[in-house]
């Protein structure tokens, strides 16, 4: 179903609050997030790039952050909107702590909150241009879910945003199984991230894998994947197409 909303920027002189405040398109963007449930909790992988269109502007952006005691939030899309969401969540977690009642927000609750926030912004035609991945563990229960910029949300054993949905999900559907060990989980995520590195133009070879278990959150140091470029076909790419042009 195609649907375009004409946005009238209005007369900036006469109309004080013009639509120039609305998001039209993203500027600095992060690419895929890939996440899986494993034996002890959830593993989430992301690279550290922030693209400005086709320019690789930022190479040290952390796109996965801990939320409260029980959750990890990964974001792809507009980085500034992600930072805005982190501010919303800061307030949410703060208010939750202020009750001082021993209860703390679990991943289900945070996911629900984010879904409501994203949906509400979509209703006002001013979306937060992100696809979010929310993973966590509370009381032994692992949780992994996703929310898109228009508020579509779901949970599953493995999720991926952007290109990850096309390239990583098929690998995960084939090779994910319940109760993966930490090592196997990391190997599986690295396999997905390697494919993304080869095929996603906005991916960079500097990634972090974050882990959340009942004990808490660990974010790995940034590291790179081994890649192989020595295929014969790449050595002499025009071998099969001789000609004057």
């Amino acid at each position, binding site marked *: *179903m*195609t*649907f*375009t*909303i*004409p*946005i*009238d*920027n209005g007369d900036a002189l006469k109309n004080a609050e013009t*639509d120039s405040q609305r998001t*039209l*398109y993203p500027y600095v963007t992060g690419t895929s997030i890939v996440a899986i449930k494993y034996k002890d909790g959830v593993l989430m992988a992301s690279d550290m790039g922030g693209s400005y269109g086709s320019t690789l502007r930022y190479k040290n952006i952390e796109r996965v952050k801990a939320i409260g005691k029980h959750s990890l939030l990964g974001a792809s899309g507009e980085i500034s909107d992600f930072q805005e969401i982190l501010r919303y969540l800061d307030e949410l977690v703060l208010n939750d702590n202020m009750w001082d009642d021993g209860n703390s927000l679990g991943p289900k609750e945070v996911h629900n909150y984010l*879904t409501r926030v994203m*949906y509400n912004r*979509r*209703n006002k*035609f001013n*979306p937060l241009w992100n696809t979010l991945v929310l993973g966590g563990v509370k009381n032994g229960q692992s949780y992994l879910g*996703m929310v*898109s*910029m*228009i*508020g*579509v*949300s*779901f*949970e*599953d054993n493995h999720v991926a945003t952007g290109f990850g*949905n*096309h390239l990583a*999900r098929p690998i995960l559907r084939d090779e994910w199984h319940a109760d993966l060990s930490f090592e196997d989980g990391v190997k599986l995520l690295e396999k997905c991230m390697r494919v993304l590195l080869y095929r996603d133009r906005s991916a960079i070879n500097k990634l972090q894998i974050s882990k959340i278990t009942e004990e808490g959150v660990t974010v790995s140091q940034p590291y790179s994947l081994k890649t192989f470029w020595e295929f014969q076909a790449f050595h002499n790419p025009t071998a099969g197409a001789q000609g004057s042009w």
Partner: protein
Amino acid sequence: MTKQHANWSPYDNNGGTCVAIAGSDYCVIAADTRMSTGYSILTRDYSKIHKLADKAVLSSSGFQADVKALQKVLTSRHLVYQHQHNKQMSCPAMAQLLSNTLYFKRFFPYYAFNVLGGLDENGKGCVFTYDAVGSYEKVGYSAQGSGSTLIMPFLDNQLKSPSPLLLPAQDAITPLSEPEAVDLVKTVFASATERDIYTGDKLEIMILKADGIKTEVMDLRKD
């Protein structure tokens, strides 16, 4: 200055099919569990069926964010109703509420294609079918969603509904037994899965009777 057009749509179609069949003392509500976007599958395990009241179960396909919001609004309204009337809403009452809720957003609709199934005040099965803006009708059976065009003609053939124009009004409730109706539902979904790319993965069937709700899950083709 030319009008700026948005390059994003507030709507998406997450696909899927919902069916409901009313019987003399039961109601069968079924939906597949695939959630898609464009040509991708987001998840194979998403329930489109939502119990609103003991005797009213809603199944919706379309844009899942709107469907979820709609379910929340109706659940919330039902809770208030229970506080005020000290009883659960009947299925016909919920049917009217759903219609009103949908029309309330007539100029920015919930992109949800609904089928409401349940038992009426006499314990007979009832099915209500809707469009996105609240136009509704009590019927004996209905299909909504991406596979509806494949399923509805077959249900028409098998359930031989009398014309709603007849006088005196004749019931469209099927004389089929509950196991026969469930079997028919499984058949139509297996068929729709073959030809509709947005339908598949698993089939969730809810059977509502006076003594409670039973749920059954069947595998469908995953391609």
